[in-house]
């Protein structure tokens, strides 16, 4: 049996873990396992940008994954970037083995607003399903409510749901059968 592994990396509190597990399982139908591994965030730190290179963290996450892993999802609490962009909420390889999501810019605290655990969990669920969706072969969707809609602002994340639209769901089923 294949599992989706969730790997929290120096995130501190993990109160969001249970709803996240349930939502991911509901979205993709895979059972969830938690995993703990040594991932060096320091290696990914870019001193000029004071941000963490998300691709470098992702490379460590997907290195030598468990044998029964369908996908591995890493969760960090640092500000992520890819070289061409000022920041990213997360990163995934299309049809790849793993993905990464950061809590940093999902947290109200980043925008100078009071912390809201429920909202942070909701955003984390959406972004995790979104990135795992890419791992399962889904591209960005134009449906405003679909979780696969591209989000460049945190408000974009709030306006979409955590569900796949029917078209993306069909693509997911098709891709899963192919795999």
């Amino acid at each position: 049996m294949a599992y989706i592994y969730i790997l929290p990396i120096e995130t501190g509190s993990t109160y969001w873990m249970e709803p996240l597990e349930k939502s991911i399982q509901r979205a993709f139908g895979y059972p969830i396992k938690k995993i703990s591994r040594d991932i060096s965030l320091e290696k990914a730190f870019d001193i000029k940008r004071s941000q963490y290179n998300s691709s470098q963290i992702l490379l460590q996450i997907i290195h030598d994954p468990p044998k029964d892993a369908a996908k591995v999802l890493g969760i960090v609490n640092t500000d992520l970037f890819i070289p061409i962009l000022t920041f990213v909420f997360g990163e995934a390889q299309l049809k790849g083995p793993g993905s990464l999501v950061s809590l940093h810019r999902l947290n109200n605290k980043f925008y100078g607003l009071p912390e809201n655990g429920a909202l942070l969990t909701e955003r984390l669920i959406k972004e995790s399903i979104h990135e795992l969706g890419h791992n399962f072969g889904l591209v960005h969707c134009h449906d405003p409510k679909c979780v696969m809609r591209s989000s460049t602002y945190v408000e974009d994340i709030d306006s979409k749901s955590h569900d796949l639209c029917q078209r993306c769901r069909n693509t997911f089923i098709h891709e899963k059968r192919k795999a």
Partner: protein
Amino acid sequence: MKPSDIAILIVDDEASIRNALTQWFEMDGYRVSSAEDANSALMKLQNGPWDIVMLDIKMPGIDGLELQRRIKKIDKDIITIIMTAFASVDTSIQGLKEGAFDYIVKPVDPDDMSHLIRNAVEQRRLYYENLKLKQHIEGFSLSDEINGESPAMKKVIEKIAEVSQTESTVIIKGENGTGKELIARAIHSNSNRRYFPMVTLNCGTYSEGLLESELFGHEKGAFPGALYRRQGRLEMADKGTLFLDEIGQIGEKMQKDLLRLIETRCFTRLGGDREIDVNFRIICATTHDLESAVQAGTFRKDLYYRLNVVTINVPPLRERKLDIPAIARAFIKRFAQAMNKNVIDITNDTLDHLLAYDWPGNVRELRNVIERAMVIAKGNLIELTDLSFFFPSAQTPADDSILSLEEVEKNHIQKVLELTHGNIVQAAGILKVSRLTLYNKIKKYKLKTFKGDMEA
């Protein structure tokens, strides 16, 4: 246009930039490829069609600006977006001047990047749409009124396609209403002259003097009333087509002038002395039998031969009844749109009536009939009753059975009595009979007088 229809090429010497952008655009569903320098980018550009090229301005070897110049030589319509690591305004402006769509300074905000690509894709979509429309215009096209399933009309259409590509003078022969002008227009709009005007002159509607002035124009004071210089139709048709309708009706002098015009391709305005060169093609139409006119000596033989390079005989509608359903449906479609009515078709028995008729007024008459029927039509089909103005005998009989005169009289008196609530004086007044006569009629027909009793 789907995202997968758009091909993006990323040119950057930094692998991390190439990978990040490739991944970013792949997530949006675009087709993406990358090159590490200008040379491999140019190789890729030779091999396939690309829509957008994102290129780094600073690369070893050929730099981004030079690469852009070379790309534009291969395909000037490719969208190029310049990427620079430093906010070097000068080089970016230079890039824009040389045809770049936009530029970005690395790193870029994800939202700005999304907008930039969305705009570039939209520009590309418009480019493809424009290309398609141009191809459509440049392809052979006919008005829906020139509808031809019948062999006779197919021959006409073949001839239109044939002569469109030539510069030959054409005579279109056919009865009134067969669509001679439409055919002239089809020849013009499929010819190389299509971007210039087609000017029509109906020779039958002008006196000789007026026709001359209409065709050649006149200088100020050329004749009493010529207060201003006026351009003739011929000048208006420069580089285009001159359509002379009813050519058989022009007089002797005009025939001579026209012959000279065709031979020299230049003319002078009435009252003028300057020769004006014009580049035109003549298409003319006639309902007359020009050969007989030539034999009778009323039409110049030399002009006839000059004009009669290609002849298109448009068959009357009665000789191509096969086309009637398609033509009728084309009109229905057009009028439904113009009148905003939901009429979509015509019933079979109505079509049978249209097919049985001889259409002396040809397509024009059919068009008018359909237009009137469309005004009347209530449902989404044209029924025979909608054509009662045209086929009165074909009206469906009314539901009421034919009554005798006595029955009609009885019913009418009863109706008036009902209206007057049994008031005999009023009813007799309306019916313009005496009260006694009315009483007698009531008695005869045993009518109800609305007083609770039957008058005996």
